[in-house]
């Protein structure tokens, strides 16, 4: 596993981020720094805002950013369209990946790869080269090649959809991968495949932010930092041991501590 070699400037800097959905304020001031080579786990009870954080970073139009700043690779991304963020190397693995009947995986993934290349001033990948790359990634993340031949996620089981997110991540090779509860609803085999995929992607040049409700996935992916989100704020940060503490004690002591602090 790659060691966490800190660069001098963070890959991702979040300062005082607040966001709402409609009239409901969900993020109430998030501060976070993520350096290349790191894996951060964001944990928290249901409704704490952890999924919202991942989605706001990716630019989901359902949320309104009401304050704060997010620098990704040195650039303020909050006003950028989601596709621009993606082309800069930000990737969101969806909690509920969508079915795209009639859209072939090959075509979908190539469009994503080409969009990023063109954004970086490179030429689109030729079909044969892409084909070989895709085959290699399919083998690497141990996904059934038949799934790639079909329409994206159409008729896939929950586990297959999550694996497909990992394949997309491997193909798009992001600088920053945001995994939105990718582990939930997975059996142990699927969990291992998803974790292996994330571990494969880990390198000194990129980073992973893992949003999860359960400690379980952290048995397979060792984070450098664990943060606990509660009521729209990070209320506790620590090393991997914090995840184990949460596993033993549950979230109630976090809630109590947070409420006592108010």
């Amino acid at each position, binding site marked *: 596993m790659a060691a966490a070699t800190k660069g001098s400037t963070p890959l991702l800097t979040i300062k005082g981020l607040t966001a709402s959905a409609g009239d409901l304020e969900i993020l109430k001031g998030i501060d976070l720094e993520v350096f290349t080579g790191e894996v951060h786990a964001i944990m928290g009870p249901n409704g704490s805002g952890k999924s919202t954080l991942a989605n706001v970073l990716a630019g989901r139009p359902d949320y309104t950013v009401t304050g704060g700043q997010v620098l990704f690779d040195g650039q303020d991304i909050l006003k950028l369209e989601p596709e621009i963020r993606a082309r800069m190397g930000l990737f969101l693995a969806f909690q509920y990946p969508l079915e795209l009947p*009639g859209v072939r995986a090959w075509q979908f993934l190539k469009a994503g790869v080409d969009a990023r290349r063109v954004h970086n001033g490179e030429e689109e990948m030729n079909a044969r080269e892409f084909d070989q790359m895709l085959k290699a990634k399919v083998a690497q993340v141990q996904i059934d090649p038949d799934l790639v031949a079909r329409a994206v996620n159409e008729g896939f089981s929950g586990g297959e959809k999550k694996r497909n997110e990992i394949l997309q991540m491997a193909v798009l090779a992001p600088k920053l991968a945001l995994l939105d509860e990718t582990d939930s609803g997975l059996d142990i085999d699927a969990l291992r495949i998803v974790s292996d995929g994330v571990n494969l992607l880990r390198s000194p040049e990129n980073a992973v932010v893992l949003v999860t409700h359960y400690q379980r996935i952290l048995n397979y992916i060792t984070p450098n930092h664990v943060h606990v989100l509660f009521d729209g704020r990070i209320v506790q940060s620590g090393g991997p041991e914090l995840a184990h503490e949460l596993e033993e004690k549950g979230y109630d002591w976090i809630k109590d501590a947070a409420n006592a602090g108010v």
Partner: protein
Amino acid sequence: MTSAPAKYAQYLADFQSLARGPGADAPSWLHDLRDTAWSRFNETGFPTARRGNERWKYTNVASIARTDFGIAGSLATANASKGLAPTYKMEGPAVYDLVYLDGHYSPELSSSAAVPGGVIAASMAAIALDRSFDLEDQIGRYASTDGDGFAALNTAFLHDGAYIHLADGHAEKVIVRLSYITVDGTDPKVTYPRTLIVAGSNTDVTVIESYTGPKDSAYFTNAVTEVSVRDGAQVDHYRLLLEGDKAFHVGTNRVKQEKDSSFSSASFALGTALARNDLEVLLDGPGAYCSLNGLYLTADNQHIDNLISIDHAKPHCTSRLNYKGILDGKSRAVFGGEVMVRRDAQKSDAEQTDKNLILSTQAEVDSKPSLLIYADDVRCNHGATAGHIDAETLFYLRSRGLDLDTASRMLIHAFASEIIGTVKPDQLREHLNTIFSAAIPNKSLPIARVR
């Protein structure tokens, strides 16, 4: 003969000139058939959207009725059709191409077969006089002239058309491509394409009907297709409505299926100011199966009306009806689907859906699927949807780096691909893929908001 009202003066003049001119040497039974149909048209006229006329509730044909459409004055030459005949190849041992210019069969552009007792794929005019081809007994058996005037008018002008007949048990699969081309001209022109398909028992035939014409002329195509699918026969029928943007098209299609027969159709429509696609399938033998698919893409002020009805007259028949529309601009789509299951048609299995993707705020869909079930042991369901591109899905694509336009196009194309995917001949499927890809508008709004 009833005297024509003044508003049909052009039609009367044409009718009389046909009887004296190019249609003069027709056999007497054909003269009689035309005369009867002409009388019938004079009684019914063109339909109106008056109250209680459910078949024409949402489609007004006044723009057709008030125009003096006339038949083409002179025969177009093969040269005039350059670029209009199909460009895609069809391969196979028994592929026939029949090309019609302004309603007249063009021998130069066609390859036909005329073997009584074997395969007939030929111009009606050419074989009408020869009784061994059995045209007299078959024509008009399936498409009645008692309907709304259009079929009667088509029959009154019956002169040329396509006759496709496979003798019982003919083993070789046959493919026939029919190209009905309206050639450019200044007058408001009308053609009356007529197609008759008789698939003898245990035969297999694919028929591709395409309708094309000049982009900027207000011409009228009034087509009738009759299909008889005998015991155990299979007919794959494709209808490509690729008329000009100002064209009017009314197509009346009547299909009768016998025991254990199979009829699959895919109807594609693009362009056309006003299009009506009227398809009736009679499942008249146990074990018959039909699969009716359609895809229409409309823009500007275009109007398309699909009226599809399936009559489960005998038990153990299965029908599948799946139409999809993509609507832009101020266009309007009407879908009327009626599945009737008669009292004795037990074990009927019927599904019908109509789905519409709406790309603008001003486009409109009137979708009315209906089931009339008189038997008690059946499996039937139906549904209709109309909506914008889903915002959640769009975000999924954008999160992978695709911009709004690219993502929208991909999703619109994906929506269409289900129907294009039903096309069996590879070359035709690719051809349609190319045509529809080019026609999908480059736009991304509006988007349905989730949450």
